């Protein structure tokens, strides 16, 4: 046997941890956790306060409440204006989510799966509503919709919200599409699937996560959009955020707290349950 030709390079011995150092690490761990707790408290406190206030008996927004009741929930649901606004918002949100996801999927397929000139330009164009100040978009749309006689209707809101939400769908769907192998579409076609069937049976199930995430984004953003909506919503087409906005100008009873609590629950349900059940697969 030949002797070892080259000595293995000496590896530096890990220095033994000094007691004060370990203490320091422990302490910094505690401080770190404390800091995180504080940040969470800072973020969550207003939400918790709103929920508590919504169960207050008093006619004013006071915290902590002296007595509990459900009267502000009753007040909300018995006010037909509020209920109509909620209905409008849900309808606009759902329609927006549907249209946005459809357009977003189509645009993403084009942007991710095909190579063509101006692709990058088109991509930035599709995402540009993200970077525009909402107020600019609002003004632009109010002028445009007046021209095309679409002001103050359900569809004008949907159109505006689609513009605002499509970028989110494109983002999430594109991310899923990057992981999708086109050869699967070829395999499907080879086995007899028409292009649409191949999309529905093979591509869609595999990019489901991105599509659902995009649709949720679209719904939530549409549901609480205020700035652009203020410009284009007419008197007969009021959404919940606008109704709330108008309401608190003159009144400060806990009805808005009750609404807020309802919205919080809806968002929690959407945000927590949907992704768990559908996106994880």
């Amino acid at each position, binding site marked *: 046997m030949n002797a070892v030709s080259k000595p293995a390079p000496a590896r530096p011995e890990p220095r033994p941890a000094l007691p004060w150092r370990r203490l320091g690490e422990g302490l910094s761990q505690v401080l770190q956790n404390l800091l995180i707790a504080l940040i969470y408290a800072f973020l969550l406190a207003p939400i918790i306060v709103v929920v508590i206030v919504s169960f207050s008996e008093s006619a004013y927004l006071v915290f902590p409440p002296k007595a509990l009741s459900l009267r502000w929930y009753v007040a909300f649901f018995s006010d037909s204006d509020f209920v109509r606004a909620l209905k409008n918002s849900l309808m606009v949100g759902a329609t927006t989510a549907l249209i946005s996801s459809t357009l977003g999927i189509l645009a993403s397929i084009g942007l991710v799966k095909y190579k063509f000139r101006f692709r990058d330009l088109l991509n930035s164009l599709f995402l540009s509503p993200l970077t525009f100040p909402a107020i600019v978009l609002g003004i632009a749309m109010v002028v445009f919709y007046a021209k095309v006689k679409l002001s103050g209707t359900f569809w004008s809101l949907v159109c505006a919200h689609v513009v605002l939400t499509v970028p989110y769908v494109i983002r999430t769907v594109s991310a899923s599409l990057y992981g999708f*192998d086109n050869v*699967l579409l070829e395999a*499907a*076609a*080879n086995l*007899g699937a028409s292009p649409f*069937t191949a999309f529905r049976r093979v591509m869609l199930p595999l990019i489901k996560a991105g599509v659902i995430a995009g649709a949720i984004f679209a719904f939530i953003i549409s549901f609480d959009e205020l700035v652009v909506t203020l410009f284009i919503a007419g008197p007969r087409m009021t959404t919940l955020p606008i109704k709330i906005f108008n309401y608190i100008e003159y009144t400060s009873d806990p009805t808005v707290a009750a609404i807020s609590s309802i919205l919080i629950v809806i968002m929690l349900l959407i945000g927590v349950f949907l992704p768990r059940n559908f996106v994880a697969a």
Partner: protein
Amino acid sequence: MADVQLKSVSKVYGRNAVVNDISLDVEHGELLTLVGPSGCGKTTTLRIVAGFVKPTHGAVYIQGKDVTEIPPHRRDTGMVFQQYALFPHMTVQKNVEFGLAMRKVGARERNTRVGEALELVGLAHLKDRYPRQLSGGQQQRVALARVLVIRPKVLLFDEPLSNLDAKLRLEMRLEIRRLQQEVGITSIFVTHDQEEAITISDKIAVMNFGRIEQTGTPMEIFSRPATPFVADFVGTSNFLEGKLAAMEGDCAIFESAGGLRVRLGPSPGLAAGDNLVIAVRPEKIILAEPAALPGTENVFEGEVAETTWMGPLTQYLILLKPGNEKLVVKQQNLDTSRIFRKGEKVSVRWLPENCLRFKK
């Protein structure tokens, strides 16, 4: 009538003809292999048959019908992809069922046929697994079952074995051959591996630069290559360039650029003075101690420049006298054979009939 016919098919991208005027007949039940180096256009040719690529010129016929304008999903071909291309969100059962569902086959018949197909590839017990829970070999079997179950007019194989490890590859290629013969479906198989092509095919088409260099049975391709490219690609060859020096009866005497006088087998159609390339396969050359070979016909002296021991055989690089022309020689490692070392003098010999001849 051939089952699959390509008639002067070309595919041009920009100014680059990836497939250049290819005509091909695949008879019913036959397995034809397209073989060639990467970039030779073999995969594009296959994709033209499947319909994924539209030819720039020419026409494709499947069972006598012109399918050039027909989209892939109505061509009734069954393709096995290199990357398997199983649907990751479906079980094995659902994957194999897919083609039948597309053909609106009833649930009961679907079930029986899927069962049969999985039985055929030996995976019936794994029907509820997802592709990610299978090994590469198993996935490729599922892919095979998935196309066999629809009983397509043509089976297309796009380098289906190249993602498998060496042992499994040998096993799968026998399996594919067995299944193909069992079901008797006309097949086109694409590979860059000439050994795979030789062992699996009824017919081979050797491609290079978008053209078919030669079509024939494996035996024809191997023993009578039409061009130096085929001689080198299918099995390797030693090439010697030179001239035909003289004719002795119908046998020719070839003189290489380096001054070797090689006797060729019967060579009708050649005349003294023709420029020639001759090829000799490394395994057809006998190696021995200097001056130990009987006879004088095609016996040459040389020196070992390189010895590579490869297990069952040893490969030598020999420099031949007088012109130092290079010769690769492969010797079986029998009990009796001795291994020559670098620098040793040797003599070599090959039979006149083992010289392949190509006019220049």
